[in-house]
């Protein structure tokens, strides 16, 4: 095999992977979102069968419609769920950045022999099940939970509120914020701060003029790594949010498993993807530019 062919084969493998495990399922979901709900197995029509033949396929294709999207657009529930998800993701990401940045900064400035231990400490929660860790927060936040035991006399009603969801989200996603920030900050040349000081720049200003801009790739990576999955989060709002907290992931889950309305659930999934593709593309472009800049 020539070198060119080898190279093509190597590139082909991930593309085939993506096509097989992303594009094909997405096409199925997209098609499902254009179908109608039915009491059948599978619970929607039309179903294209291999034995049908082109003429039947064409006739069945005429049955596809955008009705489900009209349902989404017409029902406040879905719009609210989307908006609420984006809001929670935005607030959560902002808090994560505020907590994660000082943490990552301190880690990157810690003596070298401590850094590996600190990184380990950030990763350590992954060793327990995500579900158990979120359950633990129920124990902390519930009306007679740990938090309220400590605050005798002034009980807080956090459990089953949006606040609880945000706490859960911030807790769960902290490593995803801290690690990229740490990677960016640790890589930064500290003599740059000395140079800034040497040129008359006080430390707090050097932080804004040098440290923050140079850690921007880490900030962008951390924010997207948190924002995107938080928007579609299911487990945390389900366990901590109670019935009042609307999040699109939970709505999707309900449509799919409780209402058995696969077409509407699929439409929700497609819209969610479209909403998130925007930030993902911004992120990719940013990463591309970083690579081009040779850093």
């Amino acid at each position, binding site marked *: 095999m020539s070198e060119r062919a080898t190279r093509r084969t190597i590139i082909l493998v991930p593309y085939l992977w993506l096509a097989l495990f992303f594009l094909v399922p997405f096409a199925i979901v997209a098609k499902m979102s254009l179908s109608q709900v039915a009491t059948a197995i599978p619970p929607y029509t039309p179903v294209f069968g291999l034995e049908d033949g082109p003429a039947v396929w064409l006739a069945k294709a005429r049955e596809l419609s955008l009705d489900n999207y009209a349902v989404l657009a017409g029902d406040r529930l879905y719009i609210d769920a989307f908006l609420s998800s984006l809001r929670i993701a935005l607030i959560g990401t902002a808090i994560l950045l505020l907590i994660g940045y000082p943490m990552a900064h301190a880690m990157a400035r810690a003596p070298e022999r401590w850094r590996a231990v600190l990184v380990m400490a950030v990763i350590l929660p992954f060793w327990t099940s995500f579900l158990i860790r979120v359950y633990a927060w129920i124990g902390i936040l519930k009306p007679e939970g740990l938090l309220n035991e400590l605050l005798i006399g002034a009980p807080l009603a956090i459990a089953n509120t949006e606040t609880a969801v945000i706490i859960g989200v911030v807790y769960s996603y902290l490593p995803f914020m801290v690690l990229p920030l740490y990677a960016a900050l640790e890589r930064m040349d500290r003599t740059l701060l000395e140079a800034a000081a040497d040129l008359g*720049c006080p430390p707090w200003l050097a932080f804004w003029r040098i440290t923050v801009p140079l850690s921007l790739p880490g900030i962008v990576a951390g924010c997207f790594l948190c924002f995107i999955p938080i928007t579609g989060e299911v487990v945390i709002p389900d366990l901590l949010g109670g019935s009042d907290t609307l999040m699109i992931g939970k709505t999707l889950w309900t449509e799919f498993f409780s209402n058995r309305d696969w077409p509407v659930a699929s439409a929700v999934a497609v819209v969610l993807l479209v909403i998130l593709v925007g930030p993902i593309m911004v992120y990719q472009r940013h990463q591309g530019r970083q690579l081009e800049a040779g850093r």
Partner: protein
Amino acid sequence: MEPPERPAAHRAAFAPWDDPAARPLVVYDGVTKRFGAETAVVDLSLAVYEREFFALLGPSGCGKSTLMRMLAGFESPSEGRVLLAGEDLAGVPPHLRPVNMMFQSYALFPHMSVETNIAFGLAMEGRPRDEIGARVGEALRMVKLDGLAGRKPHQLSGGQRQRVALARALVKRPKVLLLDEPLGALDRKLREETQFELMALQERLGLTFIIVTHDQDEAMTMATRIAVMDKGRLAQIGTPRAIYEAPTTRYVADFIGDINLVEGKVTGAEGSRVSVMTALGDMVVAEASEPVSVGQAVAVAWRPEKTRLVRAGETGPAGSVMLTGTIADIGYLGDWSTYHVDIGGLRLKAALANAVRRAEDAVDWGDPVRLAVAPEALILLVR
């Protein structure tokens, strides 16, 4: 003791260190710096005068960078004081010190253009926009980077980056410019060019430069005075000529340039004339730099280029120390040749200028030769 300075035209009368009335600009007063259990600088005192081009020279780990960083404010002395223009700098943070540093790594801000990098220090002073623009333009012209104002550091060559770093440090017109191995990352040719440019710049701007370097050629070429450092201590301080021609310790003699060094014992001393019994026979040193007593262990040293090669049959200059041996090695460098000569179990070096093209009577490997060294060329080393 320094030999009389032969006045170079442009620096004729510049020797403030000899003038008791001159007030030094930078003073290290009994400075010690410890890092944990290690001591980087040991009770060191030295003074740098205005408009000097002062070199801190020594091998890596000798404390020269630490000394500079204490002036910039990145380290503080464990003991002693660092003074600038008579003021103790203790407690003054780096961003408030009127000195600027050119970093070895250049430390250019990678997210800023060349122009913004250079303007950074002026912007920090809160200068008006027009003034910043004018001064940055001037600085860019000074380092010949006029066309590259909009480039980012990663789009520049090593030499260009070095110039940006220099312009950025100079644009604030610091009282003292600190240069930490400024030419270390440049290739040889560019380094030599830049040395002369730095000297011209320093003279034109009338600033005080302190340079840290491990490269003796660099220090010799550029500096008005050199402080040779050894394990956190000052080994010798003086003009390049003094350091080279009159080293006071074996360490300095050995560190700067090439040298032949023979151990011996003092057999007689009359004034500055000292006779020494060495493995190569008796040698008479014409100008001993310090008093010695008979029986004292000393070393006699001389520079390879102060040696004359006397071929068999020729007679050497009268009064010279004559050493007979054989040529072990010849290194032809174009302008110079170095001869390694085996004499009495020692290998000595002689350097001769190749002043004549196609010299016919060139010596060869294994040839018996005699080396002649004038008593004036011999250096007596006690420490």
